[in-house]
């Protein structure tokens, strides 16, 4: 039935198709006959893509039901035992296939003659708008869209020229309106969509609007009285308007809610009370150990995915106010770990308290008693004098904001103007904190500073030293900081513990072992697992997993794990609840391994295939959480039942 109608339509519109094919042949002949006239050929290619294909689509689409009106044969079709939706779809499919056939001819030319891609491929600018996908994709999308709109409208009137004109107005009007809306800005910021997502959002809008027209057209075609033109038109409008509004709302929802490339992220900002906290593009959540599920603390967009801190039942994070009329304004928010007491403490409205407008933040850290926050801002910043300090302190309730004086050497001045500062931990009962200074000069410089809040003076604690890992280098009791340092610049790193009370260091590794930046403290802070790379007398280096006992002041267990760097890179050793066994992630073997006290493999739990790039291991009670770095999803493994569940997507 469908096939018969499809073929009938092809036969009926064959002349139009061959007209289009003729234009493509002329285009080919022009390229063969005038190879030197590059300018002319370029314009011909533009004309083909930006005029020919859209107009061909309009001609084909608007011819949809022209003959049925002319002959009155709509009644003939309707009186046959054919589903009306099938009639509509078969005709549409036939016309779409004609357009597709013309496109295939053009794509064949595109493949045969590489200079065509030079003329129209790549990023292009059209009427001031950047078309990242190049003209062919744009033209293909537009032509399918216009054909659908024109075909949908063709049920309304017998004159093809009227339908063509109406389709042109409606189709291009909606296209331009959506494009302008997608590019509209408040201040310097896009209102609806990130620029990287503009093309996909536009594509979504075209698909949804085309579907709205098609849906309204099919419904009208199937249900309306075609013998009454006015009633039919009103019926079509009554269906089209809400559906198009729905399509536009769907586009807006897509632009706002569906993250585009680079917009998704899932970033652990540490753990407090045994519960890991995550920042995502949708807000902040923690994995609740008591409820065994994700608990949202703040659902808010435009969070800065690097900047968050948790401590003693409090959380602080930064978020952007993208609707600022002047610039992207950064705000500091605080909340309790159950999500209550959420409050903006810095940002809009806090200028009176001495906070410079538009100040970008670089790092923050809540004190162990949950009373204060220290902040690092980036330099130079608007409103901040070049010689000003990037160090700030304030109370959790937003009061007591103070710009802390800083040593120019701490700031990397004058020798390393691009020095990067990073908070490490609080020390001495909140009377000071450690700052890591990284220089970008070659070879890199690393220093650990202690900032004394009483004297407001910073002093160097360790030269050529950094924290042993990016996250959780401090023991759970806050007594020790795992660090690695070079006794001589350029030599292998030595793993050591820095006593946060006395600021004395105790070496853990020595010799030629090179520390790998993965350490894990057990819950009591008695033992620390770490990984080193060890050279062999012969053969490749091996990666060794070891456990250091603080009480015994020595490494109490170690085992050679692998010689593959890709395995060792992601082991993420994590202590299980019993404090005796370790859980590691083996990405190349797609499994989690449970290691016994002697670090031998006790059990292997395979990762489900739908976790693409497992990373970021956390253990919460009898559950293990695994992040997927590709899909930005979070998975929970029940360690007893060995069952997996996706808990964030």
């Amino acid at each position, binding site marked *: 039935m469908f096939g018969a109608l499809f073929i009938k339509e092809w036969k009926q519109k064959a002349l139009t198709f061959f007209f289009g094919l003729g234009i493509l042949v002329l285009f080919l002949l022009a390229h063969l006959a005038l190879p030197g006239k590059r300018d002319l050929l370029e314009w011909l290619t533009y004309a083909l893509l930006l005029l020919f294909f859209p107009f061909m689509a309009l001609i084909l689409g608007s011819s949809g039901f022209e*003959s049925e009106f002319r002959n009155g044969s709509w009644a003939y079709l*309707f009186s046959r035992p*054919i*589903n*009306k939706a099938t009639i509509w779809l078969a005709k549409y499919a036939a016309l779409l296939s004609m357009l597709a056939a013309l496109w295939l001819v053009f794509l064949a030319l595109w493949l045969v003659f590489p200079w065509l891609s030079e003329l129209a491929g790549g990023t292009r600018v059209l009427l001031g708008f950047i078309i990242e996908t190049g003209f062919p994709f744009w033209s293909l999308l537009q032509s399918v869209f216009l054909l659908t709109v024109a075909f949908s409208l063709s049920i309304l009137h017998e004159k093809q020229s009227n339908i063509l004109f109406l389709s042109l107005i409606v189709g291009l009007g909606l296209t331009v309106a959506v494009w302008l809306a997608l590019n509209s800005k408040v201040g310097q910021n896009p209102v609806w969509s990130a620029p990287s997502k503009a093309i996909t959002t536009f594509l979504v809008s075209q698909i949804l609007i085309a579907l709205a027209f098609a849906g309204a057209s099919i419904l009208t075609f199937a249900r309306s009285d075609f013998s009454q033109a006015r009633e039919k038109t009103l019926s079509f409008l009554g269906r089209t308007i809400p559906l198009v509004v729905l399509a536009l709302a769907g586009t807006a929802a897509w632009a706002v809610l569906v993250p585009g490339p680079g917009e998704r992220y899932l970033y652990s900002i540490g753990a407090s009370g045994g519960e890991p906290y995550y920042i995502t593009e949708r807000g902040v959540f923690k994995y609740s150990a008591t409820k065994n599920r994700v608990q949202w603390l703040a659902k808010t967009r435009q969070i800065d995915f690097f900047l968050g801190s948790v401590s003693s039942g409090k959380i602080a994070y930064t978020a952007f106010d993208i609707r600022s009329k002047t610039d992207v304004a950064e705000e500091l928010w605080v909340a309790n770990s159950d999500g209550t007491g959420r409050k903006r403490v810095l940002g809009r409205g806090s200028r009176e308290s001495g906070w410079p407008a538009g100040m970008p933040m670089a790092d923050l850290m809540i004190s162990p008693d949950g009373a204060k926050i220290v902040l690092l801002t980036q330099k130079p910043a608007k409103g901040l004098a070049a010689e000003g300090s990037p160090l700030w302190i304030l109370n959790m309730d937003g009061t007591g904001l103070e710009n802390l004086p800083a040593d120019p050497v701490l700031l990397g001045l004058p020798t390393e103007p691009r020095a990067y500062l990073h908070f490490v931990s609080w020390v001495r009962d909140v009377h000071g904190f450690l700052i890591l200074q990284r220089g970008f000069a070659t070879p890199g410089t690393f220093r650990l500073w202690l900032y004394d809040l009483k004297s407001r003076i910073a002093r160097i604690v360790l030269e050529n030293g950094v924290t042993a890992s990016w996250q959780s280098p401090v023991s759970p009791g806050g007594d020790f900081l795992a660090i690695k340092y070079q006794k001589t610049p350029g030599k292998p790193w030595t793993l050591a513990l820095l006593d946060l009370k006395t600021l004395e260091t105790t070496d853990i590794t020595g010799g030629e072992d090179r520390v790998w930046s993965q350490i894990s403290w057990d819950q009591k802070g008695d033992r620390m697992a770490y990984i080193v790379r060890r050279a062999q007398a012969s053969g490749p280096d091996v990666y060794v997993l070891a456990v250091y006992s603080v009480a015994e002041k020595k490494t109490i267990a170690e085992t050679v794990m692998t010689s593959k760097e890709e395995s060792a890179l992601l082991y993420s050793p994590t202590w299980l609840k019993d404090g005796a066994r370790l859980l590691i992630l083996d990405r190349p073997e797609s499994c989690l391994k449970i290691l016994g006290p002697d670090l031998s493999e006790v059990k292997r739990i395979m990762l489900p295939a739908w976790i693409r790039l497992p990373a970021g291991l956390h253990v919460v009670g009898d559950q293990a959480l695994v992040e997927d770095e590709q899909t930005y999803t979070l998975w929970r493994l029940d360690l007893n039942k060995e069952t997996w569940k996706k808990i964030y997507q």
Partner: protein
Amino acid sequence: MSELLRIEGLSKSFGRHRVLLDFDLTIESGRVYGLLGRNGEGKTTLARILMGVIPADAGGIYYRGRKIPFLDSAYKREFGYVPEDPFFDEEMIVQGSLDFNARFYPRWDRKRAAEDIERFALDPKARIRTLSRGMKLKLELAMALAASPEFLILDDPTSGLDVPTRRDFLRDIIRELAASGTTILFATHLVHELERIVERLLILHAGRLALDEDFDKVKAQTQMNLEDIFVSFVSKD
């Protein structure tokens, strides 16, 4: 005889013009129904609603006891329809049109189609737009008969036919179909032709059935011919 088709409370308006008003009708299988009505009384509208060409404003149609929604198309495989004004895809040829229709009707009789084309002196290769109105009607008729319908709706087709074909049509074809058990609804305003074949008479007036009775019975009761019967009913108001 069993009920083939039942129409209940059918209404249809075109703008302010109300054509069918709460129209009821039951059609039994194997009979020839003659539907008379003045111009604009709704004969064509009724035929088009029955064929799903246009929707009714209200009411229901039941075919073999099953309600037919407007969107249903399967029941039309058992329906034949010859409209007053033939509507074809004018660019098709006669044989192409027959072949196109053959795909939609499971009981399509190719032999019968070929015989009727020859009987009506139609050129299978002729393009439909070159045919006269009468020839198009013959083609419609050939197609409707080839579908081997259970129920045939004839919407005043004879007015466009030449006299020999009309006679042939009425004398032979209709009788032949009736003998084979096909139910026929013959809508017309040409009463003399109807008189020869009608078994049950339906008179449509003011949107409703003014008469629904066996023709022989009406004739016996009134002692009038069909024309007088018709006039007497439609001129009551």
